[in-house]
């Protein structure tokens, strides 16, 4: 009888596991946030080379600064939680988006950049909010929580562009 009870408890524990969060492991969060920041900086540098629109210039300049800051934030938190942060790499889609910006010039690059920013910031918010909620490393969770309102502010700005 005792054995059966133990088996049942074990089964209960096994089935209960999937109900908990399956948050990104710390290294994956660091890589994902790093790639997103790298895309932000690369795309903003590209548009700054050609734009004649002061609003686009102001926004892109702000992105360079803000996404360098969030990378530093995540890097420091990664060091604190002893997570190895490899140099960030663009995902295939991010690399394709950069190639698309390179293929445009002048005003069309400006509008392509803004359109990309709207999509990319929605994804960035999704990643940061998810890690801030359930992340397993406390320093990284705190970094994500700090980045969430910054990304929300960028999204609010983009809605007016």
């Amino acid at each position: 009888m005792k054995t059966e009870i133990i088996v049942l408890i074990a089964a209960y524990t096994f089935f209960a596991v999937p109900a908990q969060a399956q948050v990104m492991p710390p290294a994956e969060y660091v890589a994902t946030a790093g790639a997103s920041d790298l895309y932000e900086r690369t795309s903003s540098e590209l548009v700054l080379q050609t734009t004649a629109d002061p609003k686009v210039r102001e926004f892109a300049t702000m992105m360079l600064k803000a996404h360098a800051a969030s990378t530093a934030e995540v890097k420091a938190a990664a060091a604190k939680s002893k997570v190895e942060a490899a140099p960030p790499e663009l995902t295939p889609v991010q690399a394709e988006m950069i190639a698309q910006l390179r293929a445009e010039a002048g005003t069309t690059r400006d509008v392509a950049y803004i359109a990309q920013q709207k999509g990319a910031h929605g994804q960035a918010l999704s990643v940061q909010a998810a890690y801030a909620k359930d992340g397993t490393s406390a320093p990284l969770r705190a970094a994500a929580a700090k980045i969430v309102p910054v990304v929300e502010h960028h999204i609010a700005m983009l809605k007016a562009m």
Partner: protein
Amino acid sequence: MKLVLIAGLATSLGASSIALAQSCVSTNSPPPPKQTAAAATPDQAEPDMQSVLDTLASLGPKPIEALTPVKARLQPSAADATRAVMRKKGLSTAPDLTVMTEDIAYGPDPMQFARVYKPAAEPASSPLPVVVYYHGGGWVIADVNTYDATPRLLAKQLNAIVVSVEYRRAPEAKFPAQHDDAAMAYQWTLKNAESWGGNPAKVALAGESAGGNLAVATAVFARDHGLAAPIHVLAIYPIANSDMDLPSRMDSANAKPLNKAMLGWFGYYYSKTKADQLDPRINLVKANLRDLPPTTIVNAQIDPLRSDGETLATAMKAAGDKVEQKTFPGVTHEFFGMGAVVRGAYDANAYAVSRLRAAFGEK
């Protein structure tokens, strides 16, 4: 005593498995258990369609049905693949500047806003027709940014104002949050159309995939709440039938970019209970479909949702509605946004535009 204790444990085990039938509200909640895959090989797509699918594969997508929502939202989309093909062909991927956009809130949640597309040409002498458009993504992934092609095309080709509705997504906000937002945005549009230069007497509803469902469900809502009826409904590969054994669920079970397992995955995240998935707002074929506006349903042959559109057309006809449904061969789910590079999509765009143009009383 011991026996009773064991029975109690067994019951609680049973209850916990039932609780797992739907996800919790976190975007980190793990995917549902893997289902046994059907063996069916989907039909071969036309070469231009296949080239978009191949490009999508080259962007390294992971299977959505095995991911958490947050990771699913990062996967390359059919729209990403379409733009990549356009760039390879030397076409511009920048948004068409003959259409301007403005993001305007219709509710207090940051996701409750609409992207209003307007033709950039000088204001017309008479108010423009209006299309309220709902994007797809199974109510869990994608947003108004992912689905830019269709609203932009409709605004340009119809010389209309298109209101592309963002809505709260699951699992953070579960069913019927999306249906509530869709209805709220429709009422808001009726109220505000005039101030944008639109004609509130000429408002149509449109949507793709989960958004195709919202278009029809919102027409039902308008009828039941005494709102002005939309002049026409354009439902593009809508979710409309909860039967998982429909012909297209079988023959296109392993199609791309949408497969049958993803439909189960969406249901797991958008619903609070299994019963939600049978609600007539989801399972439209079982809704009261009488007295709905004239409707156009567009489907793709290689799509697990093909039978949804076909059975919805049958059910609407039986209810006495005017419905036209077309299934386009050699194309897949999401093809409608690929008109720049896929011939079948170009044809479907032209068909849908001609139907809406006729509804608006134009040539």
